[in-house]
């Protein structure tokens, strides 16, 4: 008897909650999709992982912009880097009725349905750093054009070794999409560009996104190729690890390094002049995304190609194809400008 009553109680409670839900407030889904705010709105920031220093720097940039033009930043923090784990956070921001959501997608589609729900509720959605499905957001605020980075790294290496000699690439994994595209770019430019005719790419090694593997590979590259003058490390974990390892063995200096990594992690090596880095200002990325979110929420822009987004001190940015806004060309980090980079 007791068991049956207990089950009945559970069912009744669930039904009660459901029915009271029906009678309750409007679910938010029936609001017009083109709501415009008359003033600054609250913007919800949804990173891949709440603890990622890249993302907290981005958040600080957004907060600085909020102090400049008003409005508020709500920063949420999923504990797993999957699109599915971002769903409850999107729903939370919808329930809290924020004016705009800025998301760094853990994958393209995981949270896309929830984001579409947000857009139907009149919330403007922007992706930053890492895109989501095109129909789930209006704008994608990108740090740099992917195609540009390979060329930048090669130019930096050429400058470091005086356009002459052997160099290697220490990539992330064999299947990494961006890295492989950059390496292809480098190879084709080496074959055609007369300015680079004296440079030779001797091998491509893989650091598997692990610090210890990168350190080990960097050391063995130096031993295997005695004439090696430089290594390009296009991976955020690899470049600091390689710099650390070669500085320990005393090879850094004879062998120069460049690549792609948070500038703050290799600050001292960049100051020494033997390491360069291709990076962008993550703080500015946060600011630009915040300006774009406010402009959208107040219907100052509609996210159509060719439109211009004013971003305060950062300048004005143009909306490109498929709603892409590019922060700007990535910077070669040298001892001169290293202090501009917070991350």
């Amino acid at each position, binding site marked *: 008897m007791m*068991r049956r009553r207990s089950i009945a109680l559970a069912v009744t409670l669930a039904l009660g909650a459901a029915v009271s839900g029906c009678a309750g407030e409007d679910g938010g889904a029936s609001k017009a999709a083109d709501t415009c705010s008359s003033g600054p709105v609250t913007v919800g920031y949804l990173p891949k992982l709440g603890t990622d220093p890249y993302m907290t720097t981005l958040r600080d940039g957004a907060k600085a912009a909020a102090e400049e033009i008003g409005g508020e930043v709500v920063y949420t923090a999923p504990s797993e880097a999957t699109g599915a784990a971002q769903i409850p956070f999107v729903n939370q921001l919808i329930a809290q009725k924020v004016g705009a959501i800025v998301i760094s997608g853990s994958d393209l589609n995981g949270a896309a349905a929830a984001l579409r729900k947000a857009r139907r509720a009149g919330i403007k959605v922007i992706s930053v750093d890492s895109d989501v499905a095109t129909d789930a957001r209006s704008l994608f605020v990108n740090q740099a054009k992917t195609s540009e980075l390979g060329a930048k790294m090669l130019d930096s290496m050429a400058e470091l070794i005086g356009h002459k000699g052997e160099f290697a690439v220490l990539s992330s994994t064999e299947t990494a999409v961006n890295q492989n595209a950059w390496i292809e770019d480098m190879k084709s430019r080496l074959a055609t560009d007369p300015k680079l005719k004296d440079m030779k790419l001797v091998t491509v090694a893989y650091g598997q996104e692990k610090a210890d593997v990168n350190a080990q590979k960097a050391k063995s590259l130096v031993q295997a190729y005695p004439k090696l003058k430089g290594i390009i490390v296009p991976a955020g974990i690899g470049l600091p690890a390689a710099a650390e390892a070669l500085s320990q063995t005393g090879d850094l200096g004879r062998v120069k390094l460049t690549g792609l990594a948070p500038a703050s992690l290799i600050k001292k090596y960049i100051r020494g002049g033997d390491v360069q880095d291709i990076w962008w200002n993550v703080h500015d990325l946060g600011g630009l995304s915040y300006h774009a979110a406010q402009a959208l929420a107040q219907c100052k822009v509609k996210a159509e190609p060719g439109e211009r987004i004013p971003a305060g001190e950062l300048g004005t940015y143009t909306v490109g194809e498929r709603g892409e806004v590019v922060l700007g060309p990535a910077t070669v980090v040298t001892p001169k400008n290293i202090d501009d980079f917070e991350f």
Partner: protein
Amino acid sequence: MRTSLRARLTSWDYILAALVVVLLVAASLTQPGFAGGFNFANSVSQMSDKALLVLPLALLIIAREIDISVASVAGLSGVVLGMALEAGGPLPLAITLALLAGTLCGALNGVLVTFVGLPSLVVTLGTLALFRGLCYVLLGGTPITDIPLSLTTFGNETIPRTYVPWDIVPFLVLAPLFALYLHRTAAGRRTYAIGGGPDIARYAGVRLNRIRFGLFVVSGAVAALAGVITVARTSQAAPDGALGFELDAITVVFLGGVSVLGGKGRMPGVCWALVLVVGLRSMLQLGNVSGYAQSAAVGALLILSLLATNTAHRVHAALTRRRLRALAVRESAVP
């Protein structure tokens, strides 16, 4: 009558139910938007796949077994669903294949545990890695995103004119069936008997392996259904679909009062524990509490519940001892 009332008030089901009520009232008062239909629908939908995993797990743990590969089975079934759809298969066929894949996974676990005689914790630890690995081998790193609209609607919309999300419907159908099996059938009583003492159950004529094997197969099939819901909810078949769900599911089972040693625990308790976890997570989510802190809160809840039951048992045992001793003293005093 008095003792039955006391037993009822101190039973874990009722303590959980009271906790649920306290939590819901407190959250409704303190968190704006908590009591709204929108939040109800999202919070329920969020747990819809994990809730399914809880049902067979409760039975297995009562039978002194465990299946920690459930989330990997769900992930693999989702991958099979996605690949079948990508190959141009119609949705019903793709779902059937996914369920079949999950059932086979469950059968593999079952064979290794019952007929080969390996411990289920080790077997399913192995298949947890095996099935998850297969997801990546089959799919690579890129999720399949071409999911039919009917399926994503199922995973993201509510039943028209209500706030009940579609994806909780399989759970609402299956939960009573599992409760009936466990509490109203002979096989359910045998499941308890196996967990209470396998040797005694064997002498009593219970066919242990048959029931155990059946439970693992059901676990696989239900996990596959959860995998289909994960695909529907996330609009994609990803190799990391349902990753880590087994921990939440096991937490709910233990929180629901199922004994780690088997033989004890009831479905209503498990369902209350589920509501409690859903409500707690929902409340914290609206308070903009990070995912890490949410997990910590659920973990703390589990530890506290174990402490509470443990203390209650000790107090009860001490009281009984004292009463028996008093009784013995009185009887010896009056010869």
